[in-house]
């Protein structure tokens, strides 16, 4: 059975791939195609962030007894992501390449450094503190994302 770290890291990878496809369309100025792929990416992202905030983080906080620890930093970065994702939607509507390229680059950096912190620290910590409940929580995360 998959643990949390494996499952969620693969999810990151899947979102990255979707994101890269969006970027390719933007570079080729395929606005229609890009915009619809972007919607797909956003749906995945929104589900991923929600699964962490509604399932993983509360369970983690219950075990560690603190909501001011690492999860609070992660939640703050989620907010920054949501904001950038809205800006991208607007830029798609306006079809402004420079603006869009700049926000895409910024979101990519935000995502990558965020993923690194989660994959190398938070997820392994979660697997450890959640112990035998881990696999069951992984299952819940999986069904909430899909």
């Amino acid at each position, binding site marked *: 059975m998959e643990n949390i770290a494996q499952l969620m890291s693969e999810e990151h990878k899947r979102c990255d*791939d979707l994101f890269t496809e969006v970027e390719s369309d933007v570079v080729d100025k395929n606005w229609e195609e890009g915009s619809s792929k972007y919607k797909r990416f956003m749906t995945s992202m929104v589900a991923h962030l929600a699964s962490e905030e509604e399932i993983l983080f509360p369970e983690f906080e219950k075990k560690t007894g603190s909501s001011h620890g690492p999860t609070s930093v992660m939640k703050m970065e989620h907010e920054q992501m949501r904001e950038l994702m809205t800006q991208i939607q607007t830029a798609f509507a306006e079809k402004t390449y420079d603006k869009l390229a*700049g926000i895409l*680059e910024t979101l990519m950096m935000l995502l990558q*450094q965020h993923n690194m912190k989660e994959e190398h620290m938070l997820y392994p910590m979660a697997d450890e503190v959640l112990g035998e409940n881990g696999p069951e929580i992984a299952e819940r995360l999986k069904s909430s994302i899909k």
Partner: protein
Amino acid sequence: MHQAPPFRAVYRFFLTAPVFIATAGIYLAFGNNSVFDTHISSQLAGFVHLVTLGFLTMVMLGALMQMMPVMVGAIIPRPILFSSLVYYPFTIGLLLLVAGFITNAYGVELLWLLLTSFVLLFFSIGLYVITILSRLLGFKVKSPVLTNLKLVVLSLGAAASVGLILVYGKITGNFFAFEPGMLSLHLYWALAGWVFSLINVVSFQIVPMFYVTPEYPLYMKKYSVPLIFTTGILFTFSWVIPETYVTLYKTLVGVVWAVVALYFSTFTLIRLSKRKRKLPDYTLLFWKLSMTMLALVSLFWIIDTIHPLIAREKFFLISGILFLVGFAVSLVNAMMYKIIPFLSWFHPAGKGAMDTPNMKEMLPDKKIKIQFMVFFAALVFLLLSIFYPAWFLKISGSLFIISSVLLWLNLVACVKVYKKYYKKAENQNSQNG
């Protein structure tokens, strides 16, 4: 995982570094054209330390502080105080060290310059090494990145210690009073143990992160830095081996380094060329130049070991410039172009200023491209000036000055955005209670 250190604790390192490369440019442009006359001289040492300490180490001290929380989750307590205690003695000590070398090159003996510089540099580097090590030793778990970081920081300490012995030699005689072996050791720990290994560790983290490539394979993360470090330890104790084998032994040390470097650079070049993202990224120009230069210098080193190609002096000068400027300076330049715009956005946006200009708005692609072209030209002329100093040193020096001013302006533009929007966010937050 935890919060990144305050931006002001790290950006001072980044904004000072280009000033030192500009100083190195001035050194070339306004000097007497004799910096490359031999490969061992006080004059050359002055130039080299402006690059190695003034640019490379200056940036790395800041970057490591910034990246430790992201890489291993280690935080440095009281970051502003720590940063000041490292930054000021380091900067002043470096200026005095370079002044010491230059005056020495012109036949003026000012020992107090060197002594004071050493006290300051040793304090700053010592404090840094001990603080980082003590943070890293606090982790019970074992991971390649933790081990690598420890070894890299220890190498910095080793380079500084051997440097101290060289200065001691100077006080009692001249810089190179000790057998040349001591100088080789200083070079090994500084260039292979510190600069090269740290760039390895950092690349393992940032190439997948900045360029969205697959991770480096585990065997590279696990073995390359420890291999370089162990070779350094064996090199340090090479005085215990019988004299007949010493030359062979030293050759082996050089080859080990060159093979690791060749592997790393080719591997990274292939990775970067397979990158899936199509969005243009001009920092890749610097990366590709950097890795090509590293591949070139290591290949040059290996071939020369088998079959000497060129006079020793020229060999060391060419290798040195390819490695230091071609490989290391380009890479650090590229790294700053990612870290600084991102942090300049990240900190204010984290405070709620979501109207902060994005990375490309504060640092447009075109500006990166222009600075790259000037830097590349400066590097080409620098290599040419090994052979024709009278023709090319001044051109190269002038181009380095322009390139560093452009770099500095590009970075300052980002930090200005940070200051403006961070302040705005703070004001808004305090108004909202």
